[in-house]
């Protein structure tokens, strides 16, 4: 234990001195770079120059460069980093949709929206402190356990980390003003000031996100360096604007909103189940519905952002891409399929049960069983693995390494068809839900419906045809290209569905919606969503990080720590599940705290009170 502090002290001192003096380019040496690097940084006069220090090669590490604390350093950083990411995602995402809800409430003059937005922020505020605690722990863990790696990162990013620190201060200030100023800035121009603060809060939060993303993407696909030595040759912009930066920015931005929506949905379900009055039930039912709407709406475009990210990963390094989707990590994509299908099934189920809130929902109930069939079939195709480890006798019975019927379902074209059809029918559930409380009155409603049905039929045919023809009957180049047709078909359904419905709803008669009139069972679907989302984030985050294999910074700075290998899948499963459970425990704590703040103890009866009461009788 004593040795930990001996190691920690110089690291913290280096960090403090580096922050204070702005001399991050030279911290490689201060933190104990190799002798060759040190001498290279000193010119003939023995004077260190920042410019020379800045072009130092990436350190070549030895096992002894890593402190041994008696347990796996990777496991510690894994848990802490993932927890920080979960809470960071929640804290950054919630103010985004809160601002939109607040704006809707202001424009429609409906206080229900405003109250709901304020209540969402209460969850975000409690989570904020935990985010900061995990962030601080992560920074300390990294400096302690991977000092050389961190000094190289500091050399690369330099004073950008100070910008991050300033942004963090701004985020804290704006968050507190935004939350605590809610009722002080509620009407008229003051409300606009409050909305402007919300805008600034989201701008700062999103900047924090993209700055932190640049560290991750630099580790995966370094830019602004000399590829041969790892020496920093570019400006901070060249280092930040790597090939994976914007794909990851988009993917995390959307995923965070879906995740945040799911977590606050669970809060609403928790409050709904605990509600005593009809008014409370109605409020939390509506809150749960809104949360589910946000989560699923953000979730629908997520696969497209994921495709972009993976396409850029392949473009950067085929080896990296194949390891993720064709090597050992591909097995984890089967688990990903189970989790995504859980999200889709839960989201759809919640919408179907929600149609009971209005009498108009009966008109569309017959369609739900067909949507369920597509979802279940898609689920089964998606989880079908390509290669399974068979015994010799099993291979003989099968007549080869792959099942003759199920084998073709194990490859991407079949899975793409399944995914896109599931997304299309999920949008159909949404559309039916939106139509459930309306009686359309426009004269051209038959033509409008016919057009919508035609778009669905053509898009579904397109997805199936492109998947089968390009996936199984052409070469690999066209296989990848077919997904573009499928993406476009799905997008056309979503966009045209929204446009046609918006036009058709003009002058529509609205049926009464009975909020609170849903089954308790439906609320468990809202619990399923954040559990699946959390598990999914932990799993996919691991894959994204693991594709670097034995590199701290891919192909530039080698990882020589005892953990420089891809762990067995069982270990990954246990770690990811353990972290998910830990996060859920913290979420329950947040819900409890949020509930506690609204609880008031009944004052104890004073001695005189009972006498007075008796006297009154």
């Amino acid at each position, binding site marked *: 234990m004593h040795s930990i502090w001996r190691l920690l002290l110089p690291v913290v001192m280096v960090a403090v001195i580096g922050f204070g003096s702005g001399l991050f380019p030279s911290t490689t040496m201060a933190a104990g770079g190799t002798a060759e690097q040190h001498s290279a940084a000193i010119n003939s006069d023995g004077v260190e120059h920042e410019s020379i220090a800045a072009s130092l090669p990436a350190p070549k590490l030895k096992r002894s460069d890593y402190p041994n604390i008696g347990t796996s350093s990777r496991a510690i950083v894994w848990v802490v980093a993932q927890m920080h990411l979960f809470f960071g995602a929640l804290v950054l995402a919630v103010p985004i949709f809160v601002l939109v809800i607040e704006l809707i409430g202001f424009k429609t003059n409906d206080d229900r929206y405003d109250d709901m937005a304020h209540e969402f922020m209460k969850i975000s505020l409690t989570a904020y402190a935990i985010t900061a605690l995990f962030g601080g722990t992560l920074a300390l863990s990294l400096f302690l356990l991977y000092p050389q790696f961190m000094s190289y990162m500091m050399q690369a990013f330099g004073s950008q980390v100070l910008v991050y620190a300033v942004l963090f201060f701004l985020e804290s200030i704006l968050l507190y003003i935004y939350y605590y100023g809610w009722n002080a800035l509620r009407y008229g121009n003051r409300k606009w000031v409050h909305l402007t603060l919300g805008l600034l809060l989201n701008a700062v939060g999103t900047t924090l996100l993209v700055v932190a993303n640049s560290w991750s993407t630099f580790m995966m696909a370094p830019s602004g360096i000399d*590829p041969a030595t790892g020496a920093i040759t570019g400006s901070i*912009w060249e280092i930040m604007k790597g*090939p994976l930066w914007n794909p990851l920015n988009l993917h995390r931005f959307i995923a965070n909103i879906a995740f945040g929506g799911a977590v606050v949905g669970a809060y609403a379900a928790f409050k709904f189940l605990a509600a005593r009055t009809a008014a409370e039930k109605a409020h939390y039912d509506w809150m749960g519905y809104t949360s589910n709407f946000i989560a699923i709406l953000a979730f629908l475009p997520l696969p497209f952002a994921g495709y972009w990210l993976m396409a850029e990963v392949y473009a950067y390094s085929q080896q990296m891409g194949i390891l993720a989707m064709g090597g050992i990590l591909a097995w984890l994509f089967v688990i990903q399929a189970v989790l995504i299908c859980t999200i889709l099934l839960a989201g759809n189920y919640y919408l179907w049960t929600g149609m009971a809130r209005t009498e108009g929902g009966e008109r569309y109930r017959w369609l739900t069983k067909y949507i369920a069939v597509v979802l279940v079939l898609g689920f089964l195709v998606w989880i079908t693995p390509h290669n399974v480890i068979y015994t010799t006798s099993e291979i003989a019975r099968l007549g080869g390494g792959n099942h003759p019927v199920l084998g073709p379902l194990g490859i991407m074209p079949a899975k793409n068809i399944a995914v896109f059809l599931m997304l299309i029918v999920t949008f159909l559930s949404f559309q039916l839900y939106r139509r459930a409380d309306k009686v359309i009155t426009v004269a051209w409603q038959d033509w409008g419906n016919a057009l919508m049905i035609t778009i669905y039929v053509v898009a579904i045919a397109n997805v199936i045809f492109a998947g089968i023809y390009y996936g199984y009957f052409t070469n690999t180049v066209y296989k990848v290209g077919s997904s573009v047709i499928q993406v476009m078909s799905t997008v056309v359904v979503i966009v045209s569905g929204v446009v046609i419905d918006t036009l058709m709803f003009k002058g529509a008669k609205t049926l009464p919606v009975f909020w609170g009139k849903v089954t308790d069972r439906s609320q468990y679907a809202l619990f399923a969503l954040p559990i699946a989302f959390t598990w999914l984030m932990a799993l996919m985050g691991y894959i994204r990080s693991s594709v670097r294999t034995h590199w701290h910074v891919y192909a530039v700075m080698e990882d020589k720590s005892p953990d420089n290998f891809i762990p067995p899948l069982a270990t990954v499963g246990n770690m990811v599940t353990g972290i998910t459970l830990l996060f859920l425990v913290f979420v329950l704590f947040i819900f409890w705290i949020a509930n506690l703040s609204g609880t008031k103890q009944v004052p104890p009866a004073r001695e005189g009170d009972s006498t007075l009461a008796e006297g009154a009788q």
Partner: protein
Amino acid sequence: MTTNDELTEHTPVTAPKKSNWGSKLFFVTLIAILIFFWWLLIFSGGVTGDHG
């Protein structure tokens, strides 16, 4: 004799001008933020694509 009603009828009444600086502040900030993110994420700033 002029009644109060007649006075009200003939006196030009100017409604107090509704101040809407709040919405202007909001939209100017929104535009500034959009420009900022365009500069941060999309504008190349002379940085060319680097695939290592």
